C-alpha cells in the first residue's frame, strides 16, 4: 500500500455530502396529503383551470363566480377577459393566489405537482375534475363541476341535456355502414408526423363520430414512420387549429407517404378548432356532429 491512511480518509469526505443529503431527505419526508374536497364552501371567487371546465361553468350560467382562467380557456370569448394564470400544466402558486381565489377548480392533469401541493397547503379549496375521453366522461365532468359550485340540480339538468345530444350524435354515427379510417395528426414539425394513438382525446372523438382510428398499436401521441402511415391507409386526415403551431395542409399532403394514402389522393383534410374538437365539454356533441357531417355528409345530416 503506497497510500497513507490520512489521504484515504480525506478522499471520502466529499462522499459524506450526498449521504447526509439522503439522510435529511428521509427525515423531512412530507406527510401524504389526503384532500377530498368535492364542494367549495365559498364559491365567490373561483379560478378555473382547463378549457372544458371553464366552458362548463359558462354553460351552467355560473360564470359570475370566476375570477381567473388558464391559457387553455379561450371559449367562450367572454372568458378571455378574465386574468390568465398560465398554462394549466405549468401553474405558478403565487400567480394563482394573486387573484385571491376562494376555490380552484382544476382539470385532471393540472400541475406541476409541486405548485398544486403549495396551493393545497394555502387552504384555498382545490378540486380536481377527472377527465375521460368518452360520453360518460363528459357527463361526469359536468356533475363534478356542478357539485363543486353547489348547483347540483342545474348540473344534472345540463348533464341530461348533454346526454340526449350525445346520444343523438352517436346514433347518427352508429347508422354508418362504411366507417372511415381517420389519422389524427397533432403536429408535423420537421416533417415528422405526430399521430394520436389510443387513450387520447383525438382517438375518443374519432370513435364518437362513428369513424375508426387508423392508428393501431400505440397509446398517446407518437411519431409515426412513413411506412406505418402508408399501412394505416387513412381515408381522412384530422388536424386541429387555434392550439399550438398550425398543421399546414400543403405540407401534410406534400408528404409522400400521406399522399399515397386514400386521404392524400382525395386531398381530404379536416381541420377543427382544438378546444372544440378535443375539449370533451358542453360543445362536444356539436363537435361530434360537425365531424360526422364532414366525414359522411348527407348520410348523417338528415337525422340531426
Amino acid at each position, binding site marked *: 500500500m503506497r*497510500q497513507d491512511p490520512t*489521504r484515504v480518509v*480525506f*478522499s471520502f*469526505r*466529499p*462522499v*459524506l*455530502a*450526498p449521504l*447526509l*443529503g*439522503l439522510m*435529511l*431527505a428521509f*427525515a*423531512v*419526508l*412530507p406527510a*401524504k396529503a389526503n384532500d377530498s374536497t368535492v364542494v367549495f364552501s365559498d364559491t365567490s371567487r373561483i379560478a378555473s383551470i382547463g378549457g372544458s371546465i371553464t366552458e362548463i361553468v359558462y354553460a351552467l350560467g355560473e360564470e359570475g363566480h370566476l375570477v*381567473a382562467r388558464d*391559457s387553455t380557456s379561450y371559449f367562450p370569448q367572454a372568458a378571455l377577459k378574465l*386574468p*390568465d*394564470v*398560465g*398554462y394549466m*400544466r*405549468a*401553474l*405558478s*402558486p*403565487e*400567480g*394563482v*393566489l*394573486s*387573484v*385571491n381565489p376562494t376555490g380552484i377548480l382544476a382539470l385532471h*392533469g393540472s*400541475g*406541476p*405537482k*409541486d*405548485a398544486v*401541493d*403549495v396551493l393545497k*397547503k*394555502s*387552504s384555498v379549496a382545490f378540486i380536481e375534475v377527472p377527465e375521460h375521453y368518452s360520453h360518460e366522461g363528459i357527463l361526469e365532468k359536468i356533475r363534478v363541476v356542478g357539485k363543486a359550485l353547489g348547483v347540483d340540480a342545474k348540473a344534472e339538468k345540463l348533464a341530461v341535456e348533454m346526454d340526449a345530444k350525445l346520444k343523438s350524435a352517436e346514433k347518427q354515427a352508429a347508422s354508418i355502414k362504411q366507417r372511415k379510417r381517420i389519422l389524427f395528426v397533432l403536429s408535423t414539425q420537421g416533417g415528422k408526423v405526430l399521430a394520436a394513438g389510443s*387513450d*387520447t382525446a383525438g382517438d375518443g372523438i374519432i370513435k364518437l363520430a362513428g369513424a375508426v382510428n387508423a392508428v393501431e398499436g400505440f*397509446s*398517446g*401521441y*407518437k411519431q409515426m414512420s412513413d411506412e406505418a402511415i402508408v399501412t394505416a391507409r387513412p381515408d381522412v386526415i384530422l388536424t386541429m387549429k387555434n392550439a399550438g403551431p398550425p398543421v399546414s395542409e400543403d405540407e401534410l399532403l406534400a408528404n409522400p407517404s400521406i399522399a399515397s394514402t386514400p386521404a392524400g389522393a382525395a386531398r381530404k383534410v379536416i381541420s377543427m378548432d382544438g378546444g372544440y374538437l378535443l375539449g370533451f365539454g358542453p360543445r362536444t356533441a356539436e363537435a361530434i356532429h360537425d365531424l360526422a357531417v364532414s366525414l359522411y355528409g348527407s348520410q348523417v345530416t338528415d337525422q340531426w
Partner: protein
Amino acid sequence: MADQSIAGAAGKVATAANGDRSARARAVILLLSLALALSIFLSLTSGASDASAVRVIRDWLTGAVPADAGLAARDQLIVYDIRMPRVLLGVLIGAALAVSGAVMQGLFRNPLADPGLIGVSAGSSLGAVAIIVLGTTWLAPVTLALGTLALPLAAFFGGLSVTLLLYAIATRHGRTSVATMLLAGLAIAALTMALTGILIFMADDRQLRDLTFWQLGSLAGATWPKIGTVGPVILLALATMPFLSRGLNALALGEATAGHLGIPVQRLKYTAIVGVSAAVGASVAVSGGIGFIGIVVPHLLRLAIGPDNRYLLPASAVLGASLLLIADAVARTVVAPAELPIGIVTAVAGAPFFLWILLRKRGIVDL
C-alpha cells in the same frame, strides 16, 4: 503547511502577483455582496401578488394584528412558504451553478467547460425523466415511498453515478486523465441522452409536457422540505470549493508543474469532481435545466477581477446567486399571473452576453 505556502506562491505566479488586483477583487466581491442583498430584498418583495414582504415580516416582528385576517394569512403564506424558500433556493442554486462552472473551467483548463460537459446534468436529467415517465409504473413503489422527493433524489443520484462511473473510467493506477474524462464524459452524456430519449418515447402526452417544462427549468417548485434535502448537499459542496482555489491556480501552470509545486493533483481532481457533481446534481434535481449561469458568471468575473481562483470562486458564488434571483424575479413577474420557465430567461439573457464576451476576448484568447 509547507504544501499550502508553495501552493500560495503558485497562485501568485498564476495571477502575475499583483497587489492592486487583489484589492480590486475584494472591492468587487464586497460590491457584489451588496448587490446580492439588494436582489434578495427585491425578490422577497416582488411577485404576481401584491403581498408585501416588508409588512408581513414587520407584523410578525411587532406582533401587530392585520385588519383583514384572511388576506394576512394569504400574504403570510406567499411570503413564508412561496417566496422565501424560492429566494433561498435561488441563492443556493445560483451559487452552486456559478462556482461549479468556475471550478470546471479551472480543472479542465478550458474556458468552455461547464458541468454539462462531463455529463453531470445529463445524468441528473436521466434520473428525473425516469421518475416522471416510470413513476406511475415500474418505479411506482419508489415514488410512493419518497413522495415529492423522488424526483430530486433520482436526479441527484443520476448525476452522481454518471460522475463516479466517469471517474472510474478515467482513473488508471491512481491517476486521472482529464482528457480521457472529457472524452468519456461526452460519450456517457450521449448515452444518457439516448436513454432519456427512450423514456421520452415511452412517455404519454401528459408526461411529455411535464418533461418539456422540467427541462426548461424553474424555481417554482421551491418548498421548505426541498431546501432541507438539497440545501445541505449544496452547502457542503460549496464549502469544499475554497480549499480548491490554490490548487486550481497551480493547475493553470500545467498538471506536472502543479505536482512539482506540491499540489496533491489527484486529490484535487477527485474533490473538485465529487463536489461539482453533488452541487450540480442537487441543483438540477430541484430546478431542472438552468443554463448559462455556470458559463457566463466566471467569464464575466475573470474580466473584472482576473483569474485568481481565491477571489474568482467566492465572487462567482455571489454573482451567480444575484443573477439567478434577478432572472427568477423576471420569470415571475413579466407575464404575471402566469410564469415563464427560468431556463428561458437565463438563456435569452445569457447567450447573447456570452457571444459578446467571446467577441471581446477573441484578441486575447484564441478559441
